[in-house]
Every structure is written in structure tokens, then in C-alpha cells.
């Protein structure tokens, strides 16, 4: 397991989420394995340590953090993962970076594969809300890496869709995946940052994964190939999922010069250098062409 960043006596580290495409992140381990003989490959796979998962009823998940789809879920995760007082103390009160991530061309929701073999048309489903991106600091102040209480977040499954489509959390966060749909789902990820498979579980049940490493975790359903989502795992608290208008704010960023990155649908697509003044907010708009 990769160690978390510690930066107490080091210059501010560059954040792990660079301009890396999701597939690149997801293929890291596979790439290393593909070159060996198939038998060795299977042997290595068998030695994979089990993923930290837990199972709970949605009721318990809801009591920890109320389960509501869409905006509220993202907002809740942002609230859960808000910068700790330690980090906030490093920046003056009422300082930070805010602005807008302007997504010029929205991605198309993943379509169902043409299921020619089906006896009839599939049932209705919801489409992913693709109006949100994530804005984060490429490098964070040292204190941002201080240890914190791990939070909890929820990525729901409703009407053959993950809600929210994009979740941003800090390392150590436990993400619940309740199944609030009518059918079976099987949440899994083959991303290098977090490889897990929660197996099939029915409506009314929930399973959870602790996000142990920073990076992009692509989440899929093994049964419904059009279901996909992203969990961005950060090792510092300076990130924000944009609202429906693209607005974001990174509060309590200490004065200094930073690189702000705008991420959208699997890629870091916009970068901008920002100077945070000793007092007040720095404004930084980014454009995703």
C-alpha cells in the first residue's frame, strides 16, 4: 500500500493528481502484470490483499450521512471533507480561491450498449449529470497533509446510475455504495488508486470501501456497463466539486502562489496559476474547452 504523503519537513509536495487520464491511472498495475507469464499473473493476483470493505444496511449509512441523490450528495461529501481547523489556521480567515469552471462542451452520458440479443427493450434509466467538474490545488501547503479523522461519503445507486457522478474525498474516507435501485448491482473498480469488487448485492443493502490512496478511482457496475462514476481521492483538503453553475471555492488557502487545476470527466483539462493575497479571496476562472 502506498504511504500517504507527509510534508512536515519537506517543501510542499506536488499533489498526486496530475494531468493523468483515468485509463492511465487505472492501468498502472495491469501494465506491470501483463508482461509476466499467465501462470505467474494468476499467482500474483491471488496474493492481492483483500480490499477494506464493509457491509451495512442503507439505514445505517443514512444515519451517518443522509442519503440524497444529486446535488445534496455532492454537497454533503464536500461538507464531510471540509478542511480541518489545522489547515484553516494556516490561512487567514476569509481567504482562499474561488471562481468558476466553465465547461464549454458537456460530455455525453454513456449509452447502453446495443443489446441486440435482448428479447425486448430495457427498462428506463436515469442519465448521468455531467455538469460538474472538480477544482483542486496541484500542490498544497505542508499543513494540509496533517492527519485527520477519516470522513464518510456516499455514492448512491439509483435507476441504473451512480449518484453523484463525481465524488471528491480525502484519503482515508470510507465511501458507502448503497443500492437503492430495483435491480442487482455489482460495484467495482480496477483503478490503480483503488482496486475493489463489492460483488452483487440487492436493493436495500449497502457496502463500503475505504479509499486508501490518492488518485482517480473509476467506478463501474459489472452488470450494467453504462453505469460509471468517478471518485477523486486527494491527500489534502484543497479541492471542490463545482456546483451546477460551475462555481467552486477553496477556502482557507494560505497566502502564496498556487497552481489550480480544473478536472472534468477523467482528465485535468485546465490549469491556472493563482496568487492568494494575505487577506481576501483570489478569483480564478478556468475554462474547459
Amino acid at each position, binding site marked *: 500500500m502506498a504511504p500517504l504523503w507527509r510534508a512536515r519537513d519537506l517543501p510542499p509536495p506536488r499533489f498526486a493528481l496530475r494531468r493523468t487520464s483515468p485509463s492511465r491511472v487505472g492501468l498502472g498495475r495491469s501494465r506491470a502484470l*501483463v508482461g509476466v507469464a499467465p501462470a505467474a499473473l494468476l499467482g500474483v493476483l491471488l496474493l*492481492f490483499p483483500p480490499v477494506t470493505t464493509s457491509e451495512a444496511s442503507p439505514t445505517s449509512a443514512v444515519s451517518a450521512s443522509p442519503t440524497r441523490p444529486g446535488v445534496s450528495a455532492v454537497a454533503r461529501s464536500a461538507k464531510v471533507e471540509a478542511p480541518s481547523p489545522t489547515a484553516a489556521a494556516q490561512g487567514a480567515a476569509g481567504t482562499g480561491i474561488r471562481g468558476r469552471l466553465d465547461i464549454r462542451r458537456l460530455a455525453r452520458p454513456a449509452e447502453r*450498449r446495443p443489446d441486440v440479443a435482448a428479447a425486448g427493450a430495457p427498462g428506463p434509466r436515469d442519465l448521468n449529470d455531467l455538469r460538474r467538474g472538480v477544482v483542486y490545488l496541484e500542490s498544497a501547503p505542508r499543513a494540509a497533509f496533517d492527519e485527520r479523522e477519516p470522513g464518510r461519503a456516499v455514492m448512491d445507486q439509483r435507476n441504473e446510475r451512480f449518484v453523484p457522478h463525481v465524488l471528491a474525498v480525502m484519503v482515508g474516507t470510507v465511501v458507502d455504495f448503497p443500492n437503492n435501485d430495483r435491480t442487482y448491482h455489482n460495484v*467495482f473498480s480496477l483503478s490503480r488508486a483503488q482496486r475493489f469488487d463489492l460483488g*452483487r448485492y440487492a436493493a436495500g443493502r449497502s457496502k463500503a470501501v475505504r479509499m486508501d490512496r490518492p488518485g482517480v478511482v473509476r467506478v463501474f457496475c459489472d452488470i450494467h456497463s453504462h453505469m460509471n462514476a468517478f471518485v477523486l481521492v486527494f491527500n489534502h483538503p484543497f479541492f471542490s466539486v463545482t456546483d451546477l453553475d460551475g462555481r467552486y471555492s477553496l477556502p482557507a488557502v494560505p497566502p502564496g502562489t498556487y497552481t489550480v487545476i480544473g478536472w472534468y470527466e477523467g482528465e485535468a483539462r485546465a490549469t491556472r496559476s493563482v496568487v492568494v493575497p494575505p487577506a481576501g479571496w483570489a478569483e480564478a476562472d478556468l475554462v474547459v474547452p
Partner: protein
Amino acid sequence: MFTGWGAEVLGCWGAGVLAAALVTLSATPAAAQWLPEQPITFAGGHVVLGAEVSGTFGADDPGFYNYTSYEFSALRNFRLGVSAEVRANDYIQVLGEVRLDQGRVLEMYGLFVRVRPWPKRRFDLQAGRIPPTFGAMTRSAYGSGNLLIGQPLAYQYLTSIRPDALPASSDDLLRMRGRGWRSNFPVGNTAPGPGLPMVNTSRWDTGVQAHGVVHMFEWSGSVSTGSLSDPRLRDNNRGRQLAGRLVARPHTSLQLGASASRGAWLNRSLEDEVDNAADVSRARQVAVGGDAEFSVGRVLVRGEVIRSTWNIPGARAPIVDGGLIATSTLLEGRYKVAPGFYLALRGDRIDFSEIRGTLVRNTWDADTWRVEAGAGYSVTRNITLKGAWQRNRRDGGRVQHDDLIAAQVVYWF
């Protein structure tokens, strides 16, 4: 269409090239991004394209246990399937799939129009070259839907009977036991050729299908030109096949299904070859099947039993008394060991009914068993490598047992 092992070797080469290409591409980040991950859409989402590419390379199969009705081994194939859905509006869609087998046999596998008279209800009508109505495995017998590499016996293994040739007596039939890959009979087309599987998934039938969902039940029914063993693009006997399937899902972890079909299966050309032409037109294949699927957590278990009866006219003594019956039993399971890695096992057999010959009483074809064990590893979400070992046994024929290994790479989007 082609025949011969040389072409299979060509298919095997194609499979090898595909495997190498996919592994190389998936191992190179830039190239991996080049491979589509999701279906490709055009015309504002009105046209959706998907594809599946699979390369299968396996050991030589001298007993022809994996031979298909297209005269190649299912363990040696390079297949490219492109499927398309044109969504004209909420009421009408057109779906089709083109398949290229062995790297050179091109066929329009399915092409039909789907009409949804009430888009908000789960009710559809499909007309054209339609997907199979019968059975649980017809939609998952090959490629990414298949847990292993070999296909279930009922859907692939060739029995000795043929739609264009008839045994004159039960002795002729007994002589062909275990030779379904290349059988010949004295009545009708006397040239050697492949026999029929119980359920043919190599090609689809042509007709009309209705489908609906009511609460926990899903039903479908169809009228088509061919038979379960011999789906057809063009009618060859003026007969029709009626097929129906009912699926119940009492719990999300459990699915229970029942299927039935009845259709004329003999070619009209045989009417001139027998004393009573009506016997040919009256000959039917009647099949019933039951299936179940249970899945929870890392475990998936499926089972299916099919019983098929073919009526054939007899020309001379000793005649075949009653129908020819074949019963298949399948049980398979999968266990996910780790993310992206699973183990799978299948036990499969076909038993045939007995007939009386001049000298002996025996099953009309040789009973056949198969055990297949394998593993699958997902390099990425849509690239899977599989390996399998297969043990085949047959109660007759030239080669009565055969252990085979095979590997497969599947890529889909």
C-alpha cells in the same frame, strides 16, 4: 463459407494477433485511450454502435467436441461483432449485428425492427431476424457473456441428425453415433455434412417476437420460419416455429425461467425422397427447458435442463419408433477471487434416447459429457483474458475422450 482445418489455423493466427495487439494496446497508456470504452454514438444519440472482438486459440480437437454448425472449432476462432441500434424515436428502433467469424465468414447475425406501441410500458414487438426466444444461455453463450471459453453442449455440440438428409432405418442412425460433425444418410442429401445442435445460436431465426414485463415476470413469444436446431433466414419447409419463454424473478438474487418451442425442422426437398410426403411436413422439433440463476456477492450459479424431441419419418425397417430425444443438463458457476479475477467451472452433458437396430439397442447418438474449468482476468474493464481446461467424454465415435486447453481474449465497447 469455408471448411477445413487450414482455415481454422488462419482463425487461430488472427486470434493470436488480436491478443497481442490488445495486450500491447492496453499496456500502453496512450494506446489504451485510443480504444473506445463506451458505445459510439452518432446523429445526436440516435445511432449507437457497439462492438465485441474475441480471439480464441485452443488445442487441436480431433474428437470435434467443439465443432460448430459453421464447421469450425469454437476453440479456434477470431470473431468481430459489430452491433448497431438506430433509435428513430421512442416508438421505433432498428437493431442489427454483423459478425465476422474466422476472420473471413461474414454474416448478418441479427437485423430487426423493434416497435414499442406504448413507450412507457415494458412491451415490445420485434420483427426480422430476431434474437432467440428459447433458453437462458442463448444470450450469453459466447464472448464476454460466457464465463468460460467453450460453449454449452446443448448450444453447440452437433448431433448426427440433419435437416436435409434422413436415415432410411434406425441402423443408419446408429452408424452415425458420435459423428455429428460430419454425418451422412442415404435419404436426401447424401453428401457428408454437419449435424444439428439441440439449440443453434450460431445464427438467428426470422420472424416476429413479442416481449413484455409484468411485475416480477418477463415473457416473450415468437413465430418464426426455422426451428430451434435450424434457425433460418428463408423458409425451407412452409412450417412455422412457435416459441415462448417465461422468466420469474421472485428475488433479485434469483431468476427462474421456462422455455418451450415447436417447429418444423425437415427440409421440403425430402418430401420427394420418402413414401409419404406428409411425414416430412409433419415432422417437428419440440423442446422444453427450465433454467435457474442465483447470484449473490462473489458467487454466480446457473443451471439449465433442455429436452428436445425430433420426429423423423422412417423409410424401412427397423424404423425409428417414436421421436429422437436428447436431454441436456448444465450447471456452471463463477467465483470472484479478487477484483478483476474469477474462477469458473461448468459441468455439462447430453443424453440421448435409445432406439432399436437390427442387432443392437443403443442410444441414437453417443452420450457426451464435458467438464470445463477456467479463469478470467480483466486487464481493463472491457478487456478480459480467459484460460480454460476442458475434459470431454463420449460414449461412442472415433475419439471417445479428449482433454483440451484454450485461451481467449475479449474486448468490447
